[in-house]
């Protein structure tokens, strides 16, 4: 457990080392990156083994940072953090494997990549709102360069849009947090202290602060109607960045909502709860519908992320332990699944065929040309549509069960989203890999034989598929961490009832 903060330091060190190594050769930078990612993975897994959920929030580091403002460098972890840390480490490792083919400015790529990951680790470990915010902002800028430099379609637009949305979101968060800090007497940014101070806030203050902080985080979580950055950004990003963006960075937003906005401002939450719930439900259905008519393969994955994150927000809005535990599980699940989808679409297919238009792909007998990619995508698609046996299913089931307790209507509409997810995933599978099931026609074949799937890609895909199946069959592995964390005193005001 106590080694967890090292994930942050290892990532930032890895970023610097990759930058230096990149000046020598791309291969060195790659190996530095892989070792860095594996180190973080080892640290998180070792912590996972020794983790005792019953201990609740465990402080890892707590030293004064800026004494005059009452800021402490306070890192702590509980089951929720740990779940997301493991997710980040897995996604980071897979991302490195799927970026193995980056030849241009490799060192810089991995430097930015690990700067982003370091920020993400930091957010998940922070127990002080200021520290959380700092890491949150650190994670923003690398995204711009990753997309603008190494991305594809419309990359500069996508990068700018994504970063400005994220930054605008973080501005809202900052405004809300500073307001709470000031209203609480300007003593401390510690989450516990802020929560204690928030008890004395007026109702209007609570409503306002919650709205600012929650909205700020929810923008990053892709809440309808503030989601539009997500598809464009994810499509424009290079594969590893899409994987991280959809897989992990969107979770930062949801995590912020759960960790900061909700426990700090319970009165505000109760007021906004119906709005959030409906926006989440609309987002699930709307994004699912939009994904159903996309012509670009990657946009399907992009909108599916929005739809899936809608489930996370719905689980939070339902405000009981069951739904919230489902939401955290869904964060993990979607992190893995989105990574897998983007890996197949962006890396395995696009980098070989140089098209992502379903209309073009359907003329290629891709399932014959790239059988491994086809099988991977089918598995990813099944996981994405919430097929039992994959991690999405227990997550969505738990969310639906929990939501039902709060609002059956939400659950009913959200279930429609499950159906839409199945529809657009199947459509994508059909058109992309199995569009042409007839033996290849000469004219439809690509001019050059497609390069075979590399070992790195296979390793990455196996890592992700294995994780989603493992969690699908044994969700208890994570739920046993998550649920005790949600039953802690911090959430008692917010999450009422629904103890499973």
């Amino acid at each position, binding site marked *: 457990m106590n080694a967890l903060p090292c994930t942050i330091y290892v990532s930032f060190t890895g970023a610097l080392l990759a930058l230096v190594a990149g000046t020598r050769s791309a291969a060195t930078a790659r190996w530095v990156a892989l070792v860095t990612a594996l180190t973080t993975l080892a640290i998180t897994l070792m912590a996972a083994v020794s983790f005792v959920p019953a201990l609740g929030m465990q402080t890892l580091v707590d030293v004064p940072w800026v004494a005059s403002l009452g800021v402490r460098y306070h890192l702590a972890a509980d089951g929720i953090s740990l779940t997301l840390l493991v997710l980040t480490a897995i996604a980071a490792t897979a991302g490195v494997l799927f970026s193995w083919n980056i030849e241009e400015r490799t060192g810089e790529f991995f430097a930015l990549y690990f700067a982003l990951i370091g920020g993400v680790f930091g957010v998940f470990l922070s127990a002080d709102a200021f520290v959380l915010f700092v890491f949150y902002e650190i994670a923003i800028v690398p995204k711009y360069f990753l997309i603008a430099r190494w991305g594809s379609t419309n990359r500069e637009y996508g990068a700018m849009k994504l970063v400005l949305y994220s930054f605008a979101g973080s501005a809202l968060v900052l405004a809300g947090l500073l307001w709470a800090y000031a209203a609480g007497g300007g003593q401390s940014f510690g989450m516990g202290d802020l929560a204690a101070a928030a008890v004395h806030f007026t109702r209007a203050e609570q409503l306002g602060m919650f709205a600012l902080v929650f909205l700020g985080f929810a923008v990053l979580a892709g809440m309808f109607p503030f989601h539009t950055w997500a598809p464009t950004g994810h499509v424009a990003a290079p594969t590893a960045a899409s994987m991280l963006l959809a897989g992990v960075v969107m979770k930062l937003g949801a995590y912020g909502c759960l960790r900061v906005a909700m426990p700090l401002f319970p009165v505000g939450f109760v007021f906004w709860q119906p709005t959030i719930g409906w926006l989440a439900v609309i987002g699930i259905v709307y994004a699912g519908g939009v994904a159903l008519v996309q012509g670009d393969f990657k946009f399907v994955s992009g909108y599916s992320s929005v739809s899936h994150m809608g489930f996370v927000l719905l689980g939070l809005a339902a405000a009981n332990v*069951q739904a919230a*535990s489902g939401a955290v599980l869904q964060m993990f699940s979607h992190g893995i699944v989105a990574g897998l989808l983007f890996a197949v679409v962006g890396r395995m297919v696009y980098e070989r065929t140089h098209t992502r238009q379903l209309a073009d792909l359907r003329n290629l007998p891709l*399932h014959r040309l790239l059988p491994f990619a086809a099988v991977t995508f*089918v598995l990813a698609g*099944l996981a994405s*549509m919430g*097929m*039992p*046996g994959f991690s999405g*299913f*227990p997550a969505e*089931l*738990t969310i*639906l*069960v*929990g*939501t*039902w*307790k709060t609002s*059956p209507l939400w*659950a*009913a509409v959200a*279930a*429609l989203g*499950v*159906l839409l997810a*199945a*529809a657009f995933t*199947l*459509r994508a599978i*059909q058109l992309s890999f*199995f569009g042409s*099931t007839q033996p290849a026609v000469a004219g439809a074949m690509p001019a050059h034989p497609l390069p075979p799937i590399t070992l790195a890609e296979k390793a990455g895909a196996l890592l992700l598929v294995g994780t989603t199946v493992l969690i699908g069959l*044994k*969700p*208890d592995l994570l*739920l*046993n961490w998550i*649920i005790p964390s949600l039953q802690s005193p911090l959430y008692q005001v917010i999450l009422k009832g629904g103890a*499973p």
Partner: protein
Amino acid sequence: MPLLSFIVFAPWVGAGLLAVLRGAKPAVARGIALAFSLSTLVLGLVVLAGFNPAAPGFQFQESAAWITSLNVHYHLGLDGLSLLLVLLTGIVGPAGLLAAWKQPGSPRAFGILFLILQGSALGVFLALDFFHWFLFWELSLVPVFFLIKLWGGAGAGRAAYQFVIYTLGGSVFMLLGFAAIFAATGTLEFGQLAHLSADGILAGRLSALGHFWPQVVFVGVFLGVAVKVPLFPFHTWLPPAYAEAPVGVSMFLTGVMSKMGVYAFLRILWPIFPGQLHAAAPCLLWLALGGVVLGAFAAMRQTDLKRMIAYSSINHVSYCLLALFAVCAATGHSGISGPAVTAALGGALLQMFNHGLSAAALFFSVGVLESRAGGRRGLDDFGGVRSAAPVFAGLCGIAMFSSIGLPGLNGFVGEFLIFRGVFGLVPWAAAIGCLGLFATAFFYLTFWQRVFHGSRSGAAKGEFADVHGVERVTLIPLIALMIVLGVLPQLLTGLFNPLVTSWVSQIALP
């Protein structure tokens, strides 16, 4: 020994083995697939040997805690109903694989998908906890999708998509319904839920949110099950799916998968929502009758033989539901006749098995015709096949007459019992249902006459080989069973009679 787990997972092990053996020769791949497919039959017979029909409740139970937060247990168990369907799967599964023996394309991939499908179906028949029951239920769609898509005919893509979306659409509502049930009760185990339902606790808890919620939840679960069967008017996915699928898959779909729906009616919907089912029964009876009558009349209008058998499948499966709904409708009425209920339910179970055999045999026969005619399978594409292929004509004829319900063959027993029961419970429904019987006889006889009689024409004009080799191995056991079960139906009824009796005793008799 976890015998039931072996039954469920043996096909999956086979699939895994095939997936690993990347360089396997086609013959080896076929052999492995068939061997693992046959494992169901072998293990099913082992279970049969140790099965005590008279014992109440489930046998060979396996239970282990699985997901604590959802209170999910890995719970398998078997009673007469499950055993019946396991045996059916054990017969139709290998037959389907044999039917696909000469299939073009990779036999390895076909085998993998087929074995996954078979394992999923077995899981559905043996699972007693919603969580993994649903897992198998949903998972069965995936291999079907690819089997139809990759090995099917020209319209296969669309048919497969339609099939999966339809079924998933139903499943989503069912999932939602069970989410609600779990939210209300905290358990997903069928047995416990049935108890809660019998005690009125379930309805009480569900109506805590509003008095209409028990009905809404019922409708959700009902939709999931009804689409799968399919119950009229949720059947529109079926004809294209059955028609476009390769022969072996059509056999499995009609023989086993449609039974999954009926099974779910008997195992889930009926015990958990008896009240709602009773209330809805007058309506549902009409739907079942719609399936019986309209299915038969629609089959009459088909010129594509495969679509004809597909519609006849709707008709036949609807008989099972007709029996169930008649029982539900009559439940609680004074003067309900115990023997009639017994007959109806027993007939329904028999009909499930019988239809599995006959429909599989008929689809296979159409497949034989199709293979001789280079892909054509119209009613008018053949003539005088009997003189060209007498053995085939004989076997196919037996299957057809079994399906019509000729006494002496297995189909007769089931349909007779159903009509006897329904007549005793809801006479008018039995009367209308007879229309379906006549129509069935009519279209099968048309089929028989146009294809097998007359002068050799169409595809049968030139060279037309009789069934041989693998085809015989596929068809003859099915036909033999039809005859045996027609003569000795007690072989099957003995398995589930005590179960039916216990069901009857649970229905409040005056």
